């Protein structure tokens, strides 16, 4: 099944003063676009992906954000 894939990620300043995770996605139709995750969700995505560094997120399925653990 085709699905969105994380192309890159970086830390950015959030509107509320927290550090947030900007994830750039490549969608199945080839379009790329950014989305910003709040601190808790960003850390959850890193944990779900087994990422110890934001660079480790590249290539991971965007679907991993749905996992609960």
């Amino acid at each position: 099944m085709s699905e969105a894939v994380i192309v890159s990620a970086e830390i950015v300043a959030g509107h509320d003063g927290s550090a947030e995770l900007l994830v750039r996605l490549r969608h199945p139709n080839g379009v790329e676009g950014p989305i910003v995750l709040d601190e808790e969700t960003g850390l959850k995505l890193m944990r779900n992906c087994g990422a110890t560094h934001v660079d480790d997120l590249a290539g991971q399925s965007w679907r991993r954000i749905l996992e609960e653990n």
Partner: protein
Amino acid sequence: MFDVIVRGGLVVDGSGTPGFRGDVGIKDGRIAAVGKVEGEARTIVEAGGRVVAPGFIDPHTHFDVQLLWDGAARPALEHGVTCIVPGNCSLSLAPIRAPDRQRVVGMFQQIEEMPPEAFTTAFDWNWEDFAGYRAAIEKSLSINVAPLVGHSVIRLWVMGPASQERAATSEEITAMQALLRECLDAGAVGLSTSFVDVDENGRPVPSRFAQFEELDALSAVLGEYGRMLQVVPEFYATDITIARIDQLAELSLKHNIPTTFSPLFDTMAVPDNATRAIARVEEHFARGARVWPQMQTRPIDISFSLLRPSLFFARWPRWVRVLRQPLDARETALRDPETVAKLIADTGPDGGEHSMGRLIARGGDACPPELVGKTLSEIAKIRGQAPAQALIDLSLENGLDVAFLSASQGHQMTDRIGPMLANDLVHIGASDGGAHLSSFSTYGDTGYLFSEFVRKAGAMSLEKAVAKITGETADIWGLKDRGRLQPGLAADVVVFDPEHIGRGEERPAFDMPGDGMRYVRSAEGIDTVLVNGEVAYTAGAYTDARAGKVCV
């Protein structure tokens, strides 16, 4: 005989036209004369060398609760703000049935970070409807208030707990329309809604369960009154924000209403975020729609402590692993010399001097007072340690409750932001005054507009800057009595020093109910503020004047 004459200043009247030397005469709370004003007055305000401008209007605040014990919305008023718009982001303090209060308090605490005592001891909560809330705040206002009513509380009133569970039925939508009419009749300046906010349990606020039909029906009511729809769009994703801009444009055209969305900010991580949104707005204005993007002036800082894991450390995997642990295990790890040596090594061969040295220790928490405001580099030198070691040890010595600030990490490129703020279709606002209390100061953005974008960058003229936050804001919101120094209009006036007006230094203050802490900024360069013709602030002090009104 005038009540007040503001004499000999540079009159910048809020229209955007060039300033001129002159006087402003005030009588019965209104501007009576502008120009060369002859005659006597009970009070003379000497304004030589100063700018005399309409009071500033702040269109995005959360002072709903604070107004119940502080009618000046301090320190907003001392920064020259004479009119505030609370009730943003779908939340207001009315209409709310008594049994639903605690549910809404949780939502407010999530946004405002207000201490619990603010809701339990600071005021007598004796109203349910919007008229009751208006009466409660009107008792001692020294600032003007143009309140929005929140979509979430309207939904909660009509649907109860189901407001956070499902779409509304047609009967419920009709009931919401009737309730909105009642609020508008009682003085609400419009409706706010949010597609983003959550309550204290992380659940979407009620407005987020609304389907388009509901928003359309409520917008129809706004159309009956020509009132504003304020929206928090999904600002974390540019494409979704643009989709919301399109939706707002359709509502604006269909119901002939003004709409505004906030926040919109610039970030180098997505460099076309703001420019794309503004371009879309320009397209819709060309079609006749009114979709005002609100952009803040101040840069965005990141703040954190070791009390909870922060993405600030995401570049260093070992730090993330350590800080993710439960508190006890985290402290144990931070006391382990072998682990700490690795953590420090991760921050670079200079022990974090380059990567952490510019962090600033903040007050308001357990940070020793003598270190507040110092950089981590300075603190490290005092302690004779590497910066990363100093951060760990200082945190451990104070229960991990030491906050550090990484300044200007977003919306900080003045050369990019200046032209956006100067754009005629960009609404300067989104201060969030009265919110995020324990995270950062939301006051002084108007001063920063002058210090950074007028004086330093020359991105716009003094007159343009004044107009953006006075006359143009009043026009956008339909505040017909405010925003300009013209005979007949309400006498909201600020006298300021154009060479020194600024946002002031951020500092902790413990002036919330229950000695709760918040970050504030004291005014810089503001001489005198008049609200409805009465001096409300002058020479660095608030007066006893209580001339503020609920204005629509």
